[in-house]
């Protein structure tokens, strides 16, 4: 697979961390050809991580979240949504009518926020891109009551910021808050802190709909209506793959790639738009920062080196920051089991905990407000009998 004509014209669709990483890896590997990045966004690449926290609260400006990229070595084109792929002709179509040829394509078109509004309803806010920020911040500072739909990481981070701003906050979800992500024990810890901060939680196991024929005025669930000045949905994301529908890569949902991030011999994909088919046939989509970085690295190396490139091992590391608790997790938390508490400091509200699987071996570890090098946390998530120091 390695004896192939070298690539000379690589196009990257997307403009976030996966796109930036892929571009950097290509250049670092000595790729000398054309490198074009087509981003639908109007901002230069930035990290989304602080958006729900310091940027939303007004403590930081989006410009401080910029991801370093050399526009000298990459032709970065902003405000260029790609609307189609002709994989037989090796070209992508941009919304402005341009057709851009490639001999290698990196799909990092990411995902967008899922919405609940019906046609004709306006005023449902989401938080995904920098462009979502200005209108949302304006409404936040004018509102008194807010309903956050979705009690996952994003919803809880938004709720935290709203509480800090003095708003009356209700969080609504069909599932118990954070339970699926953090398990029973750890999610209960966060919920207790949130409730102590004045947040109300509502369980709507039959789902939620938005009130209002024009502007959204609240939410409805079961037989209950709940009015609010502001409704923010944090109900998951949808991979941006519609532009692939007329190509051979058409996908319902994420674009499925192999462990080397190949979708086809000249097309690789990485980040939130991608799901990886594992050797056992399962398909995993892990839309976290570290996986975007790992996959983008593999994707770039695969385009250059073919099957010699290293595979993108999934990284089960993620974190969140909610209600004064910084939580870092490695591994997969069993939902129902309580962890072993290895360390606890009530004056700091800090914990170091470890979960074991049914075989008795460690399956996950987490810190709460506890500083620990991540390599040690990783070891605790996988090795039996490791003592954290």
């Amino acid at each position, binding site marked *: 697979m390695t004896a192939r004509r070298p690539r000379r014209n690589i196009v990257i669709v997307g403009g976030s961390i996966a796109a930036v990483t892929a571009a*950097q890896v290509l250049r670092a590997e000595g790729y000398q050809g054309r490198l074009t990045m087509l981003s639908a966004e109007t901002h230069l690449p930035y*990290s989304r991580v602080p958006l729900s926290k310091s940027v939303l609260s007004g403590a930081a400006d989006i410009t401080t979240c910029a991801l370093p990229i050399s526009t000298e070595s990459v032709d970065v084109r902003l405000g260029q949504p790609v609307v189609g792929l002709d994989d037989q002709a090796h070209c992508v179509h941009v919304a402005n009518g341009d057709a851009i040829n490639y001999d290698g394509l990196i799909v990092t078109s990411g995902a967008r926020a899922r919405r609940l509004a019906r046609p004709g309803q306006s005023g449902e806010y989401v938080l995904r891109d920098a462009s979502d920020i200005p209108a949302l911040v304006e409404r936040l500072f004018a509102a008194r009551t807010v309903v956050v739909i979705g009690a996952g990481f994003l919803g809880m981070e938004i709720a935290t910021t709203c509480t800090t701003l003095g708003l009356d906050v209700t969080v609504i979800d069909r599932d118990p808050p954070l339970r699926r992500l953090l398990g029973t024990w750890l999610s209960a810890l966060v919920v207790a802190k949130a409730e102590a901060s004045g947040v109300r939680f509502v369980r709507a196991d039959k789902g939620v709909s938005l009130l209002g024929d024009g502007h959204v005025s609240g939410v409805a669930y079961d037989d209950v209506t709940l009015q609010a000045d502001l409704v923010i949905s944090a109900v998951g994301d949808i991979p941006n793959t519609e532009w692939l529908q007329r190509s051979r890569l058409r996908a319902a949902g994420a674009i499925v790639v192999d462990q080397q991030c190949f979708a086809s011999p000249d097309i690789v994909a990485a980040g939130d738009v991608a799901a990886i088919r594992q050797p056992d046939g399962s398909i995993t989509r892990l839309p976290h920062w570290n996986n975007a*970085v790992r996959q983008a690295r593999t994707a770039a190396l695969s385009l250059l080196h073919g099957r010699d490139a290293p595979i993108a091992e999934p990284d089960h590391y993620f974190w969140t920051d909610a209600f004064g608790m910084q939580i870092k997790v490695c591994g997969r938390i069993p939902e129902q089991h309580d962890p072993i508490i290895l360390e606890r400091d009530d004056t700091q509200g800090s914990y170091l905990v470890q979960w074991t699987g049914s075989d008795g071996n460690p399956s996950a570890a987490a810190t709460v407000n506890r*500083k620990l*090098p991540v*390599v040690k946390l990783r070891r605790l998530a996988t090795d039996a009998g490791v003592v954290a120091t």
Partner: protein
Amino acid sequence: MSHIELDRERCEGHGTCEQIAPNIYQLDDEGLVSILVDQPLPDELVGAAEAGARVCPLAALRVVDGS
């Protein structure tokens, strides 16, 4: 000559820089990033330093040309 600018206030210790460039960055016992190499950076380390800086989710690292 290039050097690494670190905004330690922003560092949350996720260690992504360390994963990408372990010869440049390491999380210390406090779990926060420390820089292992002398500054200004020798030319041969600039690429690795940039690669590690670029993947920081908090944008706490930057390699700048200080000349």
